[in-house]
């Protein structure tokens, strides 16, 4: 009856997901680093294992109250630790009362960060919650060749008297590579002064054949870029070192457009009804991105002027909002966007507060519903570089975007899974944030939940819903048609007691009034199961159509990659048990983490990947499911659950 063989404790999962890849800094030193997530600002700090919370926060400029300066005497530097934590220190026992200790309140100066940790710096602010947003992903190893270069240049003094223009002198040193060097007006205006100030020995900031700035030579090592993942519900920003490719800081926030609707369709609807809607969405987005940027820069002690490049990836609609392009065409068949090509624009032109000459790369898309985010996911998966083995990838959120194939052929589609997989339309559903049940297992006939933040449950998020239904299917409390009722045989007492019948229909008691956060009982209803059936049938039908068009069967697929809000956290066994994905060997199913931002950072770090992304957008084929007659057939076929148990 033990479910998850692959199950790991919550903090392990957390840790695994957040470990940055390809950080050469880590390789050089023996020091172990862990992540410290600081709420409510949602700062992500890379901290030496064993460092105190106090030390880490002080280094990053986060103010805490204190009279004693971190000696463990005043008891004022209180933080609330949301992760599981060991017993309090002697000082803490003396300075904090029992109730505080029970709530996880600790002293920052006495708390060592020994594993990935979430803390809250304002104990009174119970409203701010920890959102579980995917931030770090795995990416393949590659040679970095960033979109922006910095080069140390010394102009020889013997040229000083010959009356050649400053630009020509720079070119002469940089031939043959930069013989067509140009410079934007802002750079030219400050050039004489900058050359003088640096004594003709400085760092040239270069983008293609353009000189963006002439900096002090020490600044050659201050070389960073930004990536933005423009999610419909969440925005994630990352500060990336362009020298070694490491992730320096990660910040995320809820998309401020959420109050105008939680999905793309409702945003488009808002545009239909409001003349100034596009401008409003653009401004909200830019404000969010600038706020994220400020925090990222602060974490690394940088100024906006230090950053010359950002890469943005999102669904087609969000990318249109960034560029203030009208995405209304995406709302109705035939779903035409304004632009699908990758675009390079001035960051200032879209409103990003970076260096005045900074550039913003916006990922190419394929169509109205196959966005720059999926192209980034494909980049991350390496599917396009794969010659033989066939790869299936799923970016699971409100829309299930799917790709299948390899370098020979790549098919994509977007299956309207509906919001159920993100917890919406479910009676006690919620998005993945503190209090959400994100995992369910049955052990010794007892149901147990993994809850984000380890507090009383407030609801069920997508991965929790899939897990719960998988467990109930496994135990026979949901039949293959999706009917919730106690089985005829092999009944389990602890489950029986949670089956409640109302007007002839059963509901499953997830948590009683005493067990739940709101002191109200939480149920999984028959209708919730129907919503999940619709969602998973849409995804499964999408997979089936791509497999049919490709002329392959399940066994031909060698790797399955999951990404997106649900994809990264859903248990592969539960995904298979519910029929969300076909019956693969669970070992070939792996999570890609936040693959959208990983793909964007690959483009940032390598011109080659940016070029590849643009080629990909031409190369991939888009299968429009809504115009496919066989889609309905597969959709209905996949509504039932698979019959056999798999663990």
């Amino acid at each position, binding site marked *: 009856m033990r479910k998850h063989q692959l199950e790991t404790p919550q903090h392990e999962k957390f840790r695994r997901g957040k470990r940055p890849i390809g950080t050469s800094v880590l390789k050089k030193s023996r020091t172990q680093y862990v992540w410290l997530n600081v709420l409510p600002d949602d700062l992500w700090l890379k901290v030496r294992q064993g460092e105190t919370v106090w030390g880490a926060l002080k280094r990053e400029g986060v103010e805490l109250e204190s009279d004693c300066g971190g000696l463990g005497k005043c008891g004022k530097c209180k933080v609330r630790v949301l992760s599981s934590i060991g017993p309090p220190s002697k000082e803490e026992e003396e300075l904090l009362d029992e109730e505080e200790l029970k709530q996880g309140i600790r002293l920052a100066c006495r708390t060592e960060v020994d594993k990935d940790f979430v803390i809250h710096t304002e104990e009174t602010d119970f409203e701010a919650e920890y959102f579980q947003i995917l931030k770090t992903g795995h990416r393949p190893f590659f040679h970095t060749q960033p979109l922006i270069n910095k080069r140390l240049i010394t102009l020889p003094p013997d040229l000083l008297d010959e009356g050649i223009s400053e630009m020509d002198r720079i070119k002469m040193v940089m031939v043959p590579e930069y013989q067509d060097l140009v410079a934007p007006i802002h750079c030219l205006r400050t050039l004489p002064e900058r050359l003088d100030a640096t004594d003709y020995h400085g760092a040239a900031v270069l983008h293609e054949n353009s000189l963006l700035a002439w900096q002090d030579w020490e600044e050659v090592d201050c070389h960073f870029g930004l990536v933005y993942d423009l999610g419909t519900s969440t925005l994630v920003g990352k500060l990336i070192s362009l020298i070694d490719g490491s992730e320096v800081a990660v910040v995320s926030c809820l998309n401020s457009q959420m109050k105008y609707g939680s999905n793309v369709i409702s945003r*488009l*609807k808002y545009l*239909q009804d409001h003349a100034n809607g596009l401008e409003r969405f653009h401004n909200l987005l830019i404000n969010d991105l600038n706020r994220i940027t400020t925090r990222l820069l602060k974490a690394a002690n940088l100024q906006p002027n230090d950053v010359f490049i950002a890469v943005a990836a999102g669904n087609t609609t969000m990318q249109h909002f960034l560029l203030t392009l009208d995405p209304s065409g995406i*709302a109705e*068949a035939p779903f035409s966007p304004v632009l699908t090509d990758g675009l390079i624009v001035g960051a200032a032109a879209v409103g990003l507060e970076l260096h005045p000459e900074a550039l913003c790369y916006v990922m190419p898309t394929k169509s109205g519903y196959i966005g720059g985010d999926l192209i980034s996911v494909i980049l991350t998966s390496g599917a396009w570089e794969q010659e033989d083995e066939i790869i299936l990838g799923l970016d699971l959120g409100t829309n299930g975007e799917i790709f299948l194939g390899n370098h020979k052929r790549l098919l994509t589609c977007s299956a309207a899974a509906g919001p159920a997989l993100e917890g919406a339309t479910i009676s006690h559903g919620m998005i993945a944030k503190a209090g959400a049940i994100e995992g369910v297992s049955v052990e010794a006939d007892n149901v147990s939940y993994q809850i984000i933040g380890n507090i009383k449950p407030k609801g069920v998020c997508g991965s929790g819903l899939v897990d719960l239904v998988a467990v109930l299917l496994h135990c026979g409390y949901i039949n293959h*048609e999706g009917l919730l009722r106690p089985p005829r045989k092999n009944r389990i007492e602890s489950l029986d007691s949670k089956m409640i019948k109302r007007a002839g229909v059963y509901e499953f008691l997830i948590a009683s009034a005493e067990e739940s956060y709101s002191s109200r009982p939480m149920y999984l209803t*028959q209708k919730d199961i129907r919503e999940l059936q619709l969602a998973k049938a849409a995804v499964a039908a999408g997979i089936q159509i791509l497999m049919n068009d490709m002329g392959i069967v399940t066994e031909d697929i060698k790797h399955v990659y999951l990404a997106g809000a649900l994809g990264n956290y859903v248990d592969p066994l539960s995904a298979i048990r519910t029929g969300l994905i076909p019956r693969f060997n669970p070992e070939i199913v792996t999570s890609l983490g936040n693959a959208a931002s990983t793909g964007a950072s690959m483009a940032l770090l390598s011109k080659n990947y940016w070029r590849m992304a643009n080629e990909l957008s031409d190369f991939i084929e888009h299968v429009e499911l809504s115009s496919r007659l066989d889609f*309905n057939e597969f*959709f*209905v076929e996949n509504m039932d659950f698979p019959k056999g148990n798999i663990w």
Partner: protein
Amino acid sequence: MGEYKALNGAVLKGDINTATAEMQKAIDADKNVQDIIDNGLIAAMDEVGERFSKGLLFVPQMLRAAKTMQECMKLIEPLLQKGDVTPKGKVLIGTVRGDLHDIGKNLVSMMMESAGFMITDLGVDVPPEKFVQKAQEVEPDIVAMSALLSTTMPAMPQTIEALGKAGLRAKVKVMIGGAPVTENYAHEIRADAYASDAGSAVSKAKKLLGIS
């Protein structure tokens, strides 16, 4: 109704073999044709609709039940004289302009057909003009519209307006449905009824036409 218990049960389960065998038995026993249809088949489909509304059965089961009913009807059709069975009403149905979703709409059609309505299905992405043109042609009692996207919902009032301009509004009842559609929205755009699912669509339609 107890008389057709086995037939009812087989239709409800979507068991085509048992249902057609029971159907043949009833025909061989010389039962009244209308009685077999009403109490043997339609009664079972009513139950299917009710269970669907409660969530006790789902789309695949509903489709199988409807398929079973169709197979049973095939046995009885050769015996029907013209005028033996009068349709409960005529329904013109379609998914509105810009919207390509058709499963929900198909389920409604099927359930209505199973309940004895005569259906004209215009398919998906149906512009208001087409609703009007076809309404003039088939003179339906009910025009039923489906929309699955909040962005395509405005095509519903547009269609109602077009029906009005063509002088048809008073002659037909308008029903609407689809995931983002609500009872309130139906009031707002002056539709005559809203149905939340294929099961309740049938009872709403009957109510609109004053059929029990």
